[in-house]
């Protein structure tokens, strides 16, 4: 059972709304993310689940005109506060993207890059090995660390990106549809990896795949979108509960329809 005491929470979003320019994109989201659990954000396209995910590491800062209202508590601070340095935050909240995006560098340098810019002083070879083992990629690449990261298969590239993220020892890992570009076997490997990762990290994943959400996550947040008068879409959180509850006995009718595949 999930306890709601603050000590076990890693992230707590309170009344978060995101605007792109003058347009409200997602409104009034409340989410408690417990430590060492996997929280899945699901919902139809345009419901704002990726937008909310990108609030947790302030990646929306990079989009001109994007604005976040509300509060997100992380380690006793509100990370939406402009005084919080996003660079420092992103070291503690890592991210894996929808499409594998290794840097055009060697496998070794892909991981060493993050460590170097964050001032890692220890044994680099050891860190690389540990990170690659943590991402279940070491055995496949240990003999070709000097080869380009782009020479790997899609699934391997994605695990390289996970290795790159865990190399800087974050507390939270955000994953934005990490398996949507991968085949079923690679997807299976990454899902197994998520189970291992949650022992050390807190994971928040966005997924389109209902089976994936039910297989890997502890808690599930269902987002939906409605058409606005201007013809855009406004996302909102419908329901947030334990995954088991969301998939078997949700409170809302739309949640039941969505998770059973009746729309979306």
């Amino acid at each position, binding site marked *: 059972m999930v306890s709601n005491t603050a000590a076990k929470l890693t992230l707590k979003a309170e009344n978060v709304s995101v605007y792109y320019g003058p347009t409200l994109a997602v409104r009034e989201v409340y989410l408690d993310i417990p430590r060492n659990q996997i929280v899945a954000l699901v919902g139809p396209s345009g419901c704002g689940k990726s937008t909310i995910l990108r609030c947790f*590491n302030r990646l929306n800062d990079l989009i001109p005109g994007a604005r976040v209202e509300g509060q997100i508590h992380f380690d006793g601070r509100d990370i939406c506060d402009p005084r919080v340095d996003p660079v420092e935050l992103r070291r503690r909240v890592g991210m894996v993207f929808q499409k594998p995006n290794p840097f055009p*560098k060697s496998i070794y340098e892909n991981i060493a890059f993050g460590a170097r810019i964050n001032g890692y002083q220890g044994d680099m070879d050891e860190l690389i090995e540990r990170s690659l083992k943590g991402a279940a990629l070491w055995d496949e690449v240990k003999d070709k660390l000097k080869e380009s990261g782009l020479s790997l298969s899609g699934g391997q590239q994605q695990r390289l990106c996970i290795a790159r993220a865990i190399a800087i020892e974050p507390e939270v890992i955000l994953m934005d549809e990490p398996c949507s570009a991968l085949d079923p076997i690679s997807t299976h490997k990454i899902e197994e990896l998520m189970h291992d990762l949650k022992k050390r990290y807190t994971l928040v994943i966005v997924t389109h795949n209902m089976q994936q959400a039910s297989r890997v996550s502890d808690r599930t947040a269902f987002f939906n979108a409605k058409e606005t008068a201007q013809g855009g879409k406004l996302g909102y959180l419908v329901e947030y509960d334990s995954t088991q509850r969301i998939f078997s006995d949700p409170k809302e009718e739309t949640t039941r329809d969505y998770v059973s595949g009746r729309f979306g």
Partner: protein
Amino acid sequence: MTAELPGDIAPGSWHPNRDRARQVQTAVKVVCGTFAAVSILTTLGIVATLIFETIEFLQAVSLWQFLTDTKWTPLFASKQFGIFVLVSATVTISVISVLVALPLGLLAAICLSEYATPRVRRILKPVLEILAGIPTVVYGYFALLTVTPVLKTFIPELGRFNALSASLVLGIMITPMVASLSEDAISAVPRSLKDGAYALGSTKHETILSVVLPAALSGIVASLILAVSRAIGETMIVTLAAGANPTLGFNPLVPVMTMTAFIVQVSLGDAAVGTLEYKTIFAVGMTLFIMTLTLNGFSFWFVCRFREKYE
């Protein structure tokens, strides 16, 4: 539902004229092919002329002389044909101009693509492109009448004609080219790659230096090589500002004569068709052509070898 399906139209309404369509198709192919062939034939014609005249030149002057003489005096009584005298001037001027254009162009490109707000970019980019539209003869007089006198206040021993002022102005002339092409290369770096770097906690300059520039490297090098080719072939600025004094060496403070300046000198003079003087300009042109061809070949190879492929 009573949607009008295509089947509802009377079958007799269709009369496709397949023969006519085929004829038009063929005609279009022939017209396009002809125009494409014109440019290819022109190139082949130029190359053929260069080769034939150069062969005739080499029958009068040995290749060994051409490559090893230390003086270039084809218009004097005691003729010497050391092409490296002209090559050294061209190389000096090109190298200095690239040393000017690389930092200016690359920094302008980084500024435009990564730091400038859309408003600033909308104003700055056209201004930069105006630089590319200034006639080279204007640049030439600017070098001769403005830059040289200013340089002379710092370097009194500078000649009235000198390689330095020509190369500085030439560098400014090719800067927009480097900036514009590098900016294209930098903007083509996928957003996902930058997001990846930011998500690891890198700052803006770390992202640019360690991820964006390496990813755009092949495009940046290609832009630079195109600019060098342009500098090597540039004629007006060097003719006006660098002088007409064939000097072997890499001293930018003295008057020099580049390959292009020599071709201008002979073309403006009264060298009769078929004389040795006349043939020298083809030999010099051939050398110029080989140099730019080699550079472009290298650029092509470099881009193929180092271009990163993103899906």
